């Protein structure tokens, strides 16, 4: 069958980068009306995409002291960029937004990490490997978000090194090493809801261990398993991660015009 020009342009619109798929997958974790604690880097744009598509009533909290009910009007590189401040809902201090997080008012928090393990614990402080210690920037607000949000979602590149069986340093507590661990150490609530990687989405079972929930289009289950640092359990109903919609891609590309975050 001959491909019409419309079909070609539609196909072109459907082509997307791994970064775009990760951002869209993260954005979809936000339910409309939720209060979201938005971390540095990739989550900044996931919040914008959610606001512009399915979650127009979501509210964003940023650790610098900012609360936003509308997406930033132009691309931001940091949460304190002037475009993120202008027309904010509130602009005050860190203790204020951290207090809202601690008192349980935040539904969902986003974090990046260098390492994520089998129980969803995150490391962004230091990696101890065969070549000695590699120092990373540190927690920032990640430890606080993982400790105190009602649930959190982590984003990272998928590789065996970055998904070890056990992180070498727990910057941000996930499920520890079993069900009941968070309660035992005194954490008031929360835990990981999903880990969005460049190959797949992992979720967590009743025993609080990660399992493979979906693989990104074109990625085989075997590929994910070979690039994960422990024998990853696979859901009986592994699906293909839903592709970005035209609207979602439009929201990303109008915003991140040069693909700084999503190339």
């Amino acid at each position, binding site marked *: 069958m001959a491909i019409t020009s419309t079909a070609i342009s539609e196909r072109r619109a459907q082509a997307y980068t791994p970064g775009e798929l990760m951002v869209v997958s993260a954005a979809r974790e936000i339910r409309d009306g939720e209060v979201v604690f938005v971390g*540095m*880097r990739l989550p900044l744009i996931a919040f914008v995409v959610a606001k512009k598509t399915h979650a127009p009533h979501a509210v964003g909290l*940023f*650790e*610098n*002291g*900012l609360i936003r009910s509308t997406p930033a009007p132009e691309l931001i*590189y*940091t*949460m*304190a*960029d*002037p475009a993120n*401040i*202008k*027309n904010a809902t509130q*602009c*005050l*201090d*860190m*203790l204020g937004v*951290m207090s809202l*997080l*601690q008192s*349980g008012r935040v539904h969902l928090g986003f974090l990046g990490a260098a390492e994520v393990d089998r129980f969803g614990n995150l490391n962004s*402080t*230091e990696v101890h490997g065969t070549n*000695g*210690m*590699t*120092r*990373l*920037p*540190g*927690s*920032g*607000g*990640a*430890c*606080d978000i*993982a*400790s*105190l949000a009602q649930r959190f979602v982590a984003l990272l590149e998928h590789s065996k090194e970055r998904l070890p069986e056990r992180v070498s*340093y*727990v*910057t*941000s*507590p996930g499920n*520890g090493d079993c069900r009941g*661990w*968070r309660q035992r*150490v*005194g*954490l*008031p609530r929360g835990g990981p809801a999903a880990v969005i990687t460049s190959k797949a989405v992992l979720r967590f079972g009743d025993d609080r261990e990660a399992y493979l929930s979906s693989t990104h289009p074109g990625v085989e289950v075997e590929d994910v398993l070979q690039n994960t640092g422990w024998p990853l359990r696979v859901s009986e109903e592994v699906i293909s991660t839903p592709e970005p919609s035209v609207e979602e891609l439009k929201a990303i590309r109008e915003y991140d015009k040069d693909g700084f975050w999503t190339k």
Partner: protein
Amino acid sequence: MSKLLTLRQAVADLVPDNASVALGLQMEQMIPFAAGHEIIRQKKRGLTLIGPISDILFDQMIAAGCVKQVIAAWVGNVMMGSAYNFRRAAEQGGLKVVNLSNFTVALALQAAAMGVPFLPTRTALGSDVARDNDFFSQIDSPFEDKQSPGGPARLHAVRALNPDVTIVHLQRADHEGNAHCWGNFGVMIEAVRAAKRVIVVAEEVVDTEVIASDPNRTVIPGFLVNAVVECRFGAHPSPVQGYYKRDNAFFRQYHEQTKSKVDSETWLQRWVHSVADRKAYMNQLGGCRVEELAVKQHAYAAQTDFGY
């Protein structure tokens, strides 16, 4: 009494070797780069740097050999990732790093600001941030806690932290140090209250009447301040709301130009040691770049009536 000083005088008088210095408290906005560069030029040594996150300024001061210890939640280059001098110094053991989280930096400063030895929190329980870290101690709540009905709540006590000097960059102050700021505050207010000495660096020094006209915008009362410095463009490459934008290219170039120790020294030579002050720095940056970063579209807040 006027507290107006040049940046050179303020740093010479108020930042001794081995001091603990809090700076970069408004996160990625209004980072006192000019003050940090002056500390580097005066070859201060043995400093402890305190902040929530640091977007490349700590890295520069570490590269220059000013720092023996960092107490912070995050040190890097926010848009680019790692900061190489911090990383090298931490990996090679020359730099002591006390890891906190953003919330616990804020709580440590707030405890000091309130004059109590600690504040309780639920954050970081079960994490390695709190392990072997003398800023944390586990305690049981002395009061009933509705979030843990089964027994006393386990909490972290976060130890108070009093910086010797807090350095703040903001939009405007009067000559006594009463200061206005707008944009995100981060942990600035508690760091000012917690500090033994305070340096306020302002884009503009204005009449006292300007500050008094809007007391809700006054984030620092002058009686806490030891020195006021007027320094236009003193936060570049970080942004100052209403004055100039973030210089994203500068952060990118810093990332590319400081990967090795030698390259970092070249960078410091060019942007810090060989420029006498902020005016010379701006000259080197060039008029076009400065103009490009200026506010293009003003966005004034609605007027506020304090009349009665």
